[in-house]
């Protein structure tokens, strides 16, 4: 593990999950399809923390990505017998419960004696939120500048995005499974590289290289042919798509590839598409560990399904951590009806006017009523043309507002249109739209010194 780093030694980090809900087959395929040293599983999106927080409120033993337990069961042989290590931010708001569930599964699989879990905690700020506010941490919304106090009574979860350092510590203490809560997606890939190559925390170019590798891997197959627009018709065998793997070297360069015999494609265009995904200012890709400069990244084809990535530079990290806060922000519902040719769009438009008039006559008011005509303008708006001859149009109407009863009443107003609105309408088999509580995202910054992480080893 901590051999003297040689310039030629390669560490392979495989991406096995790009979000909670990604392909269940991917983790097992990554550890069985060829040599890998680490399996990285990213489960957390911006809104996931609030979902798991609600689950924990209902059951104190829940609050983590349950898919992860199945994923672990599918890779236990590789972990127990071949030394593959797993790093996942599956812990949600309850990494300790997640770890115990993995241990129970390991017990059942007869491999518990070979599983050593590092649990990273400290990202959860909810229990300390009032104390932090009292100490003067305003947790202002990063975009609007509003102080958190305006929504404090509606906050469901608050987690700092933590970096790679505690994961590196867990690996150094011999963990072969590391479970975190809200660590950054990129830290899951960068931590094993720091651990293996002994990169110093202020070796900014190496830290940046780890982040770029992490950014490429964090969305699963999106780097290896999935959702790839470039020559999409020619991307082979998506049914057996191979998820991306980074083969990293001590100098900070790496090759993105996938297992032989898998589908999909790793090419300069496929990797470039993933690099620009969710990008802000490319000169300053800010993480807890480093500020990476995406304008330094050099890509080169390196054989079939291999792309070499090198030249990456970065600079000192900021004194802040980003905080992901989720709060209750009202109610919403979205309903649909389908109108058929002739004049499908015109019929749908009339139905929209009728519905809005009825909502108005009922005295209901909403923050927003949004109408889309799927098949005409839902994805590209007016630039897509008039939709005059559309063979069918799905009317899609959504409302949101603070009053649950109003949203509930809206959901009762769609079905009647089938019999008392414009003609040639169908597609209401799904029944009344579901009323959902909106859990909104409040991004903020906090002084790094206010957040302390801990690593516990469970076995």
């Amino acid at each position: 593990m901590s051999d003297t780093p040689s310039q030629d030694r390669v560490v392979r980090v495989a991406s096995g999950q790009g979000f909670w809900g990604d392909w269940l087959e991917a983790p097992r395929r990554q550890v069985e399809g060829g040599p890998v040293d680490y399996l990285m599983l990213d489960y957390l999106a911006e809104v996931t923390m609030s979902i798991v927080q609600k689950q924990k409120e209902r059951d104190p033993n829940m609050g983590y990505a349950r898919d992860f337990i199945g994923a672990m069961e599918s890779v236990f042989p590789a972990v127990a017998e071949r030394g593959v290590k797993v790093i996942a931010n599956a812990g949600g708001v309850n990494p300790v419960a997640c770890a115990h569930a993995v241990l129970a599964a390991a017990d059942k699989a007869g491999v518990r004696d070979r599983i050593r879990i590092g649990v990273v905690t400290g990202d959860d700020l909810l229990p300390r939120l009032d104390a932090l506010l009292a100490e003067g941490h305003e947790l202002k919304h990063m975009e609007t500048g509003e102080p958190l106090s305006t929504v404090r009574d509606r906050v469901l979860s608050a987690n700092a995005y933590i970096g790679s350092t505690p994961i590196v510590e867990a690996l150094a203490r011999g963990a072969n499974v590391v479970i975190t809560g809200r660590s950054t997606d990129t830290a899951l890939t960068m931590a094993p590289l720091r651990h293996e190559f002994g990169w110093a925390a202020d070796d900014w170019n190496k830290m940046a290289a780890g982040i770029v590798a992490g950014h490429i891997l964090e969305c699963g197959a999106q780097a290896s042919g999935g959702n790839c627009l470039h020559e999409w018709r020619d991307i082979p065998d998506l049914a057996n798509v191979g998820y991306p793997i980074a083969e990293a070297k001590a100098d900070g360069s790496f090759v993105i590839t996938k297992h032989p015999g898998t589908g999909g494609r790793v090419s300069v265009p496929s990797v470039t598409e993933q690099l620009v995904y969710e990008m802000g200012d490319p000169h300053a890709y800010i993480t807890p560990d480093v500020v990476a400069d995406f304008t330094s990244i050099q890509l080169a084809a390196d054989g079939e399904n291999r792309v070499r990535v090198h030249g990456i530079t970065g600079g000192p990290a900021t004194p802040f951590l980003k905080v992901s806060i989720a709060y209750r922000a009202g109610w919403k519902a979205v309903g649909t009806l389908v109108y058929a040719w002739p004049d499908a769009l015109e019929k749908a438009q009339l139905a929209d006017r009728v519905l809005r008039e009825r909502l108005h006559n009922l005295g209901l008011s909403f923050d927003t009523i949004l109408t889309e005509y799927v098949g005409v303008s839902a994805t590209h708006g007016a630039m897509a043309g008039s939709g005059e001859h559309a063979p069918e149009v799905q009317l899609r109407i959504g409302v949101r507002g603070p009053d649950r009863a109003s949203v509930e009443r809206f959901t009762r107003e769609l079905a009647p249109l089938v019999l008392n609105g414009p003609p040639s309408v169908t597609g209401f088999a799904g029944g009344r739209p579901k009323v959902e509580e909106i859990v909104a995202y409040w991004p903020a910054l906090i002084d790094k010194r206010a957040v302390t992480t801990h690593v516990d080893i469970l076995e």
Partner: protein
Amino acid sequence: MHVRLLDIAHARSGDKGDTANVGVIALKPEWYPVLREYLTQEVVAQHYAGQITGAVQRFELPNLGALNFLLHGALDGGGTLSLKTDAQGKVFSTSVLRLVLDVPDDVAAAAGLPPAPAA
């Protein structure tokens, strides 16, 4: 000469809150300078006029032959607030490719740009 962005670039888009990001990537390295010169912030802002509520920012990535655009106020509040089908800005990647650039003939010829098919 009119050149369809669809014929000279590919793209991927995503979200950060209420902002959509659109990365536009030249299909050939020699076409990147054409993107840099003619796919301006103003051209993109005009393209999305009426569809987004905020400003457009542009960043250059010559190393990737790409431009990154941030379209603010593009997602009806974004994330879970948004009522849009494309709440996460996934298909701005293709709406941007509807753009037709007006490129001087000599520049287009020198770069070997494919002309837009006659309408």
